[in-house]
């Protein structure tokens, strides 16, 4: 039983990592109405920036905060410079644009930083805590806590702040928002900035576990897509819960169902998604009226 609980807890920690990037995907989808394939690479890039800051001697906490700020600026800049000129165009054109961005960032990062592994400092330190007889690493607890905090902040942001409300309005109907006096451009810029910030957070939480290299977010992105889909592509909370379900199921399947095997493990979350979508075509928490992309 202890092993089972451990496996579940482990899955939640891993799932939180998927959920963190899924959150970024959801934020872009909510504001711009597209899937951003470059989200993982943007996160990778900012994580390298964080690594550079730490290497330059900045205390780790400060480096993290500075990176979050940088990420927001980079995200906003990407929207303003790269996305804005084609905003409002064909959805698929935008999606392919983000694909181009994916290839560009990945290759540019390799050119700047090379392709080798790097250690990335762990914000929470080593060690375990004992919760109800189950030993859990401080890192796992920290990851889950940070993620939940982020969801909480985002909830308040969307429900209580003017910018957040504007963002929701823009994502639902850009034209009438514009008529209502909302600056659509600025709102989208902020949306991309916040998404990049969430992505940067994801990258910095993930890197200590997977090691930092230019390709480290590629594999995570797939699982994050799955998490966001399962949760409903426009729900931040859904993204996190989707991540947890996928993390736990993947871990349980890997441990208890041998015939699936490690090679086809990825199909397990997909089958679950398929089953869920058959009942709820817009995911667990997705709003039915969203029918873009």
């Amino acid at each position: 039983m202890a092993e089972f609980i451990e496996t579940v807890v482990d899955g939640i920690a891993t799932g939180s990592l998927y959920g963190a990037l899924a959150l970024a995907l959801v934020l872009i989808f909510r504001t711009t109405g597209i899937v951003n394939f470059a989200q993982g690479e943007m996160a990778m890039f900012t994580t390298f920036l964080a690594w550079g800051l730490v290497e330059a001697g900045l205390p780790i906490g400060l480096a993290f905060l500075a990176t979050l700020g940088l990420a927001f600026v980079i995200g906003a800049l990407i929207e303003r410079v790269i996305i804005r000129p084609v905003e409002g165009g064909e959805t698929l054109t935008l999606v392919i644009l983000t694909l181009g961005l994916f290839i560009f960032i990945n290759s540019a990062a390799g050119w700047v930083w090379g392709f080798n592994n790097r250690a990335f400092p762990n914000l929470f330190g080593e060690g375990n805590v004992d919760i109800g007889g189950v030993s859990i690493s401080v890192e796992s607890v920290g990851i889950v806590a940070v993620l939940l905090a982020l969801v909480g902040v985002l909830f308040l942001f969307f429900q209580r702040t003017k910018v957040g409300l504007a963002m929701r309005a823009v994502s639902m109907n850009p034209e009438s928002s514009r008529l209502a006096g909302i600056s659509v451009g600025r709102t989208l810029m902020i949306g991309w900035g916040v998404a990049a910030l969430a992505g940067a957070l994801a990258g910095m939480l993930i890197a200590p576990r997977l090691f930092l290299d230019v390709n480290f977010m590629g594999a995570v992105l797939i699982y994050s897509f799955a998490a966001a889909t399962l949760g409903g592509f426009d729900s931040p909370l859904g993204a996190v819960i989707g991540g947890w379900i996928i993390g736990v199921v993947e871990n349980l399947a890997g441990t208890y169902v041998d015939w699936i095997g490690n090679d086809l493990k990825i199909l397990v979350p997909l089958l679950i998604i398929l089953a869920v979508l058959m009942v709820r075509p817009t995911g667990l928490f997705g709003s039915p009226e969203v029918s873009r992309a």
Partner: protein
Amino acid sequence: MKRVVPYAVLAAVLVAVPFFFSSYRVGQFTLVGAYAVAVLGLNLLVGYSGQISLGHGASFALGAYVSAILITDAGFPAFATVPVAAVVGFGAGFLLGLPALRLRGLYLAILTLGLAVATPQLIKRFDGLTGGTQGLNVDQPTAPAWTGLADDQFLYLATLAFSVVMFVLAARLVRGRVGRALIAIRDNETAARAQGVDPARYKTLAFATGSLYAGVGGALYVFSIGFVAPESFTLVVSFSFLAAVVVGGLATIGGAVFGALFIEFVPVYAGDVDEALAGVIYGAVLIAFMYALPGGVMGALRKLRGKANQFGRGRGHAQQTDGGGAGGIADAGGEPGGGVRAG
């Protein structure tokens, strides 16, 4: 007769290609032919029926392996494997299309993405048939002596012949009843239903047909490359095909050729410019392309032609079916496809 002239010129140019380029270049053009067929299939699905698939590479891999296995294990003549790859592709696409009846847009896209991710693993799982990680080396078709052609020239022309047939069939399909029904469903499913079109039937059909094209493209790919392995069919393939669809122009027939040229040649040239920066260049070109030609190559050509046609009566029929194309995917309320009213 006037309408035939441009096609005859085009045909002459296409047939002349292998006689004016090096064997290496001809090999590249042959592969473009294979890719073009697969991209066309994806465009039928994405462009005309509005269902996004990120798993097109899986059907492509299936066609390639069907062809490769039949040639190496069952001793099939290479070209005889094409219809089999087509049928298998159609069947697989039909099955894939079933969940599509219930799912829309993004959710469908992510599910198909999962299939593309799992493709190399599935190939390795069935290693008794597929050769597993060893891959399969396939003997490429050689030129019969009577043709007097070099092997690469012969292969190019054979691929061209298959491609032309596939393109003509696709053009007929989208201009006929099926095409009009697909566009009607894409643009407004409720309205289409009201007109007596059965969305479920046509959506599944679109999936199956798109997959059939991928299967044929996969078989042609095997002739051109002579080797299949799990590493040949990673996610990159599916993404490249989708990029090619958009580069060429959504909901167009001819666009597939331009898209295929793009995904084959741009990375190679980017690598020639600078090995270390190949990805940077390719990514930048792809981004720049989306700015410059958001409607793809065909969208740009159509604009040019539209301007030219203001001075005379254009070939309305062709324009109409292509017409609604680029508009429809983003929102269900987009401009209605030209073909609906005609139906």
